[in-house]
C-alpha cells in the first residue's frame, strides 16, 4: 500500500507567532520550525498501517527552504521518502492553490491512500483535505479517530458530536485524522541518522504544471482582509449568596434562555 501523507511545517509551539501587518501573513522567516504536531499524527498512523500491511509512506510538504527540518523529522520517524514543493512561485498560495500543488505532486506516482491532519496547527482552515480529495477524484473519509484496512476497504471511526460513526470506502481514498488518534513516535538517533540518506524530491510550480493563475499570490482567490486580536471578554457577573443566591442564578440563566 502506497501511502502519501500531506504535512505542513509550522513554527515551533514555543514560538510566539507574529503577523506581518503589511501582508497579514504569519512571519515564518527566521522562525524555528518543526513538523506540524497534527501532521505527525497522520505520519504515525500511516507508519502503523504500513507496519501492519506493508508498503511505503511518502511525505509531501509545501514550504520554503527552512521546511527541510520538518521533512527530516518525518523521515526520522520512519517515512520512506519525501517530496518538497519549494518555489517562490508557490509562496502566498491560498488553500486551493496549496491543494492544487499537492495534488499535482501526488499524481506523479501511484498512490493508494492519502492521509492528512484535519487541520494544521498554525492556520486552522481545514480546507485543503477536502479540496485535495476533489482534485484527486477520490472520496474523503474525514475526522478519523481510528483507521483500519482490510483488503482494499478502509474503515474509519468518524468523530461526531455524540460519539462516532463507522464509515468505509474502497481505496484509493483520502483520510483526515483527528488529534486524538494516536501519540506519534519520536525520532530516535538511528532514525535521525537514517533520515539523512533518504531521498527528498523537489518540485517547482512549473514542474508540477502550475502557473501563476493557479498558485502563488496571483492565483489566490482567498484574501485575508484583517487580522486582529479577539475582543476582550466583558467582566463576569458575581452573585453574592445572601440566601437568595440560587434564585438569582436561576433568574440569570433564565434570562439567557438556558433554563
Amino acid at each position, binding site marked *: 500500500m502506497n501511502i502519501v501523507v500531506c504535512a505542513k511545517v509550522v513554527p515551533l509551539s514555543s514560538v510566539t507567532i507574529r503577523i506581518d501587518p503589511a501582508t497579514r501573513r504569519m512571519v515564518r522567516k527566521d522562525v524555528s520550525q518543526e513538523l506540524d504536531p497534527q501532521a505527525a499524527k497522520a505520519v504515525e498512523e500511516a507508519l502503523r498501517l504500513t507496519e501492519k500491511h506493508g508498503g511505503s509512506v511518502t511525505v509531501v510538504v509545501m514550504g520554503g527552504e527552512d521546511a527541510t527540518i520538518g521533512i527530516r*523529522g518525518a523521515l526520522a520517524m520512519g517515512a520512506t521518502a519525501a517530496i518538497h514543493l519549494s518555489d517562490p512561485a508557490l509562496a502566498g498560495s491560498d488553500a486551493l492553490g496549496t491543494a492544487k500543488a499537492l495534488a499535482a505532486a501526488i499524481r506523479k506516482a501511484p498512490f493508494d491512500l492519502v492521509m492528512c491532519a484535519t487541520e494544521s496547527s498554525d492556520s486552522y482552515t481545514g480546507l485543503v483535505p477536502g479540496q485535495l480529495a476533489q482534485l484527486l477524484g477520490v472520496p474523503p473519509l474525514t475526522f478519523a479517530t481510528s483507521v483500519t484496512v482490510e483488503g482494499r476497504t478502509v474503515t474509519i471511526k468518524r468523530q461526531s458530536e455524540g460519539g462516532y460513526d463507522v464509515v468505509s470506502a474502497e481505496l484509493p481514498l483520502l483520510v483526515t485524522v483527528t488529534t486524538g488518534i494516536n*501519540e506519534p513516535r519520536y525520532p530516535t538517533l538511528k532514525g535521525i541518522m537514517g533520515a539523512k540518506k533518504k531521498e527528498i524530491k523537489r518540485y517547482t510550480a512549473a514542474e508540477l504544471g502550475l502557473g501563476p493563475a493557479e498558485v502563488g499570490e496571483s492565483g489566490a482567490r482567498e484574501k485575508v482582509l484583517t487580522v486582529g486580536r479577539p475582543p476582550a471578554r466583558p467582566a463576569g457577573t458575581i452573585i453574592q449568596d445572601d440566601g437568595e443566591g440560587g434564585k438569582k442564578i436561576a433568574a440569570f440563566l433564565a434570562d439567557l434562555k438556558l433554563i
Partner: protein
Amino acid sequence: MTQAPNTQALDEHMKEMVLALHAAVNRAMPHLKDDPKLVDQALRDCEEILDVVLEGNVSEWLAR
C-alpha cells in the same frame, strides 16, 4: 549574516538532535506515572542522543 556552509549543516544537525530530545521528553512526560516502560525507553533514547552530542565527533555527523 550568511552562515558558512559547514556551520549551517552542523546547525541543522544540532536542531534535529534538540527536536528529537524535545519530542522524546514530550512523549514521556504525560506517562510518568502510568507507563514506566515508555518513560525508560524515552530516557534511554535521550541518553543515546546526548552521548553522541557529548562525544562531539562533528566530522562523522556531517559525513553522513
